[in-house]
């Protein structure tokens, strides 16, 4: 749905990680950060939407 | 059992959107916008959609309340009106008619607002009258 509305689907990630799986969590987050850096700033940045009322 | 959809005009602003107040056995259950009315064509703003809530709200006053010894107490209409008349006369005498301000409501009818401004201007003698939609 995000993709349909012009927000890249890669910006949302859902992954189940057990609290005993710390290294996997770290890897997942590092990977996610790299993906996000490549995508650049999100079109949904707050500054772009001024409060009008 | 009685189910009704009563066609009426929204009381909130001057647009005049038409809607159906839905009621079941005498209790208001909801609002349905009127699709065939040219002003709103089946659409409403958030106030129009929720007008039915204030009508039978528990928060509405059922009896006049007068502050006695710092506490709001229920009084009769006669006592309330006597107090209002007495105090308004007193204030007008002591500080002049322009020391009184009148605040009415956009939710009441035009006729009720007319009466209020007549009372303000001809009764008390002030132009200090306004209502919630302008504030």
């Amino acid at each position, binding site marked *: *749905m995000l993709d349909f*509305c012009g927000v890249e689907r890669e910006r949302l990630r859902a992954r189940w990680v057990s609290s005993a799986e710390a290294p996997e969590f770290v890897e997942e987050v590092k990977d996610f950060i790299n993906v996000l850096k490549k995508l650049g700033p999100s079109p949904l940045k707050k500054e772009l939407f001024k409060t009008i009322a | 059992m009685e189910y009704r959809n009563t066609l009426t005009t929204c009381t909130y602003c001057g647009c005049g959107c038409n809607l159906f107040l839905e009621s079941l056995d005498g209790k208001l259950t909801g609002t349905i916008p009127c*699709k065939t009315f040219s002003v709103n064509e089946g659409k409403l703003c958030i106030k129009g959609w929720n007008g039915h809530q204030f009508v039978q709200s528990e928060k509405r006053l059922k009896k006049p309340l007068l502050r006695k010894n710092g506490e709001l107490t229920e009084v009769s209409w006669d006592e309330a009106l006597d107090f209002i008349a007495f105090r308004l006369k007193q204030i007008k005498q002591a500080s002049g008619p322009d020391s009184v301000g009148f605040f009415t409501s956009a939710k009441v009818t035009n006729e009720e607002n007319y009466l209020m401004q007549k009372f303000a201007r001809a009764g008390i003698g002030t132009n200090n009258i306004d209502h919630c939609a302008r504030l």
Partner: protein
Amino acid sequence: MIDQVKQRITELLFDGSVKGVIALTHANGHITPCLFRKGDDLETLSLGDGETSGDTRYPLNKILITIARQYPDDSFGVLVRGCDERGLYTLFRLNQLEPDKVVPIGISCPQSLALQCECKKPWPDEMVAGEKSDGVLQKQVQEAEHMDMSKRFSFWRDQFLKCVKCYGCRDICPMCFCRECTLECEELVSKGNLPVDIPVFHLTRAMHMADRCIDCGLCEEACPSDIPLRLLYKKTAEIMNTEFGYSSGMNKNEKSPLNIMAPAPKK
């Protein structure tokens, strides 16, 4: 068509199989949702055809829920089109209505209306009057996907910026019956400002409509800002269909894939 419906309503009221029939009537110069009781004059019955066919439809299922909640032991008849019947099947599944307490009085929609709605099934299974028109292929979603990412974003952003947060889409929806609505939860949807949280508000609604939306189009008709809501919900419906082979209300006793605990579907 209307005479057959009048006859059916008369039969149901006369033999006492229903306490009342929820339909539409002409009153005070407008088409009004109403409850017909035994002995009522059916001359003023309307099927929701104002100037054009089906242009004055109301959420009759929603009215049925309001009445059924107060009268749970009674049966009621209700005028249904194809979409309304999909709504009934879904409401049965969600335990908002009892199937043996509802008597649908089905009418079909003409091809012109079916094309306007891009309706997959413009006729109800339980049909009393009307001719079946052809279901229409879903193209609007495909066409919307021709836009590239930045066009999609500016398109939807501009649409969502128009939103005045009237909650009309939710209030008119025959499938919305939740006593506590997520869209009113302050932790998820911020309160007191416009524009509405983009895209949180509309996408949250779309997600909640995923296995419920019956594509009746009343939401879009109720939107004062003319936001193409139906297009958004048609997209969630397409995803549900592609991933799970599910289409809300198409089959009477089908459970929603979102409520079934099962292994992941094989692609």
